[in-house]
């Protein structure tokens, strides 16, 4: 989102010579960038337009670009529907967000530090096993995990979703470990010489230096939890415990989709993730470039 600001040229500034090549080069680059951004933005605009249409206009052929009439009531219909208490869904989602992101950041920091710095026999083997868990498809674990949590009496509570987040998560641990290893050891060593213990080292030195990677994991986790559908759907039974993603599924059911309402709700519920991204954009981009993560 770089905004070019033109400051007033100094009185003695020389006139810039633009040659044809420069103009061509810039032209091509801008055309490409504009074209591609339109490609990416088009679905978003289509979503907004669809959110304002009566339902049958969405499926019209040839496509009808502008809603006629503009149906603002779609938003009211979605958010005042007695079967879809979105304020409850949002509250539940935020409980999960806070519980899971906190747990993930704390547990993964500790584990990743161990893998990055502490010497222990079989450390790399254990790390390998941890990474191997990433290879397991979720579907294989679904029913065994469900049975395990139901034996523990955790069905229809947030525990099966929040508690595992306090026991580390392979992908985040891997990212953090890579990042921690780029921090010079000397910083820690001098702190230890000054009498700091390991926890102090982690929370006073490592964490403040790792804000970019923690931001990346925080934002990615926020997005994943916000969009997680299968977990809440499986472990929660009552509408009053459902999350935003499951709530949206009520508009996009197995056999019946209310497309205009779905779009109205989607537009509204995308906002938190978008706003969060723009707020934390700098740290996020920095974190991605520093951890070598490519989306």
């Amino acid at each position, binding site marked *: 989102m770089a905004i070019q600001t033109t400051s007033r040229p100094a009185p003695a500034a020389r006139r810039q010579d633009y040659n044809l090549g420069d103009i061509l080069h810039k032209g091509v680059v801008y055309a490409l960038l504009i074209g591609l951004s339109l490609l990416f933005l088009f679905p978003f605009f289509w979503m907004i337009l669809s959110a304002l249409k009566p339902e049958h206009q969405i499926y019209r052929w040839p496509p009808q670009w502008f809603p006629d009439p503009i149906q603002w009531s779609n938003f009211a219909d979605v958010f005042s529907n007695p079967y879809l208490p979105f304020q409850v869904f949002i509250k539940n989602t935020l409980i999960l967000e806070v519980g899971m992101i906190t747990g993930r950041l704390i547990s993964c920091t500790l584990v990743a530090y161990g893998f990055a710095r502490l010497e222990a026999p079989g450390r790399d083997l254990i790390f390998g096993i941890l990474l191997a868990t990433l290879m397991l498809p979720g579907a294989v674990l679904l029913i065994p995990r469900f049975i395990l949590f139901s*034996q523990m009496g955790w069905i229809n509570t947030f525990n099966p979703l929040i508690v595992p987040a306090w026991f580390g998560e392979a992908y985040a641990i891997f990212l953090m470990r890579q990042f921690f290893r780029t921090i010079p050891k000397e910083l820690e060593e001098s702190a230890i010489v000054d009498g700091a213990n390991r926890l102090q080292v982690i929370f006073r030195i490592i964490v403040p230096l790792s804000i970019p990677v923690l931001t990346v994991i925080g934002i990615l986790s926020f997005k994943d939890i916000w969009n997680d559908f299968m977990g809440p759907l499986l472990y929660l039974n009552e509408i009053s415990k459902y999350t935003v993603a499951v709530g949206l599924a009520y508009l996009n059911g197995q056999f019946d989709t209310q497309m205009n309402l779905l779009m109205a709700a989607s537009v509204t519920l995308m906002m938190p993730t978008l706003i969060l991204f723009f707020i934390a954009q700098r740290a996020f981009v920095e974190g991605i470039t520093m951890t070598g993560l490519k989306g």
Partner: protein
Amino acid sequence: MATQKKLLIALTIVLTFMSLMANGAIFQLPVADAQGSGTIRVTTWDSGNALEPFTNAIAAFEAEYPDINVELEPIPQEYGTKLLAQIAAGTAPDIFQVGDGDVARFAREGMMEPLDSWIENDPDFSMDVFFPGVASFGQVGGVTYLLTKDYSPLVLYYNKDHFDAAGLEYPNPDWTWDDLLNAAKALTTADRWGLMIPAHWGDWLWTRGILPLLAQNGTHLLSEDGLTVEGILNSEATVEAIQWYVDLFKVHKVAPTRQDVESFAGADLFANGVVSMVWTGRWPLKDWRVIDGFNFGTMGLPAGPAGEGNTLCWAGFAINAASQNKEAAWTFLKYIAAGDGAKEFANYAFTAVQPIAEAQGLTEDEYDGPIIAYLENVAPIPEALSPYAGECVVTPFQQHLEKIFLEDMPVQEALDAAAAEAQACLDGYNQ
């Protein structure tokens, strides 16, 4: 060394603990949670506004039966995944919804409570209130497992304006395959197809929508005892029906192919006048009814060489065999399937309860009347004839139908191959 020993001990402890937990999960037979007395849980795949009949019926039921508390737990997507996980863990709801394709399988796995003794011992309940052809979809091997929630036969929708412009007679109850084909040919133009078949969402392998063609030619995909495919799936009559179906796309070109439908990216082809007739269930009717200036009609399916034939898409409610509160579950089940609760559902879909249907005057309705008139001649679905039909019969049938469409494989050759594959699969299960 000492650290290695410690590590070894720690690992042993962890592994032992884990295996104990796993054993607990595997060897402990699932037992449904004992519900507080009088609370039953009900689940459905319905979502959005389709939950309204549930909430209304539950409110009315609780007012009438204050001792029973009903909790609705809708699952808007991934219904099967969640229900099977719940059944495996012994936490499934007391009443769950089952689609027609799963009835035989669920019955075989013993997931559903047989209802016959409940029906016999209940003086205020009788199966006679249901349309018999519809109720039979909840029965397997003479045992009743489910009561009907709702259903839809297949229907022929036609665009009256297109018929008028072409100077054609509207479809009538005497229509045959030839009438349908001739009208489709007359209605097909450079930018319009005469007929969309077998579904309004454009899946030309949708077997349920092709089944009526087989019934109209006096054939099926497998035998009534569910054991034999050879000589039925590849019989002369089946080949003839499938040939007629395939020719609509490949020879007469009166129907949009799957690629054609996909190129419209989800647009509603019938409502937009891109196709003149559609052969599908009743589901889109409520949306088409409210479009201003959309002038269309409904009619039963045309007769084939062997006469009338149709099929149902059906859903029913079952009581969980592991329910701890079957008494209360039965009370609620009969209330929503045949009692006052059924009236709520009748506002959304076809009811199986004859007195309610009569009271609604459906038979007089401009759109619903012709559909209701065709509730006889319903062929059983393959899944009802054999619990293995989905996997063993429908899958190879669809795979070879695709070969006919995409690789120009001759119909007889494709169905011979499909029948051989299906027979081998069935035999593997049945021996």
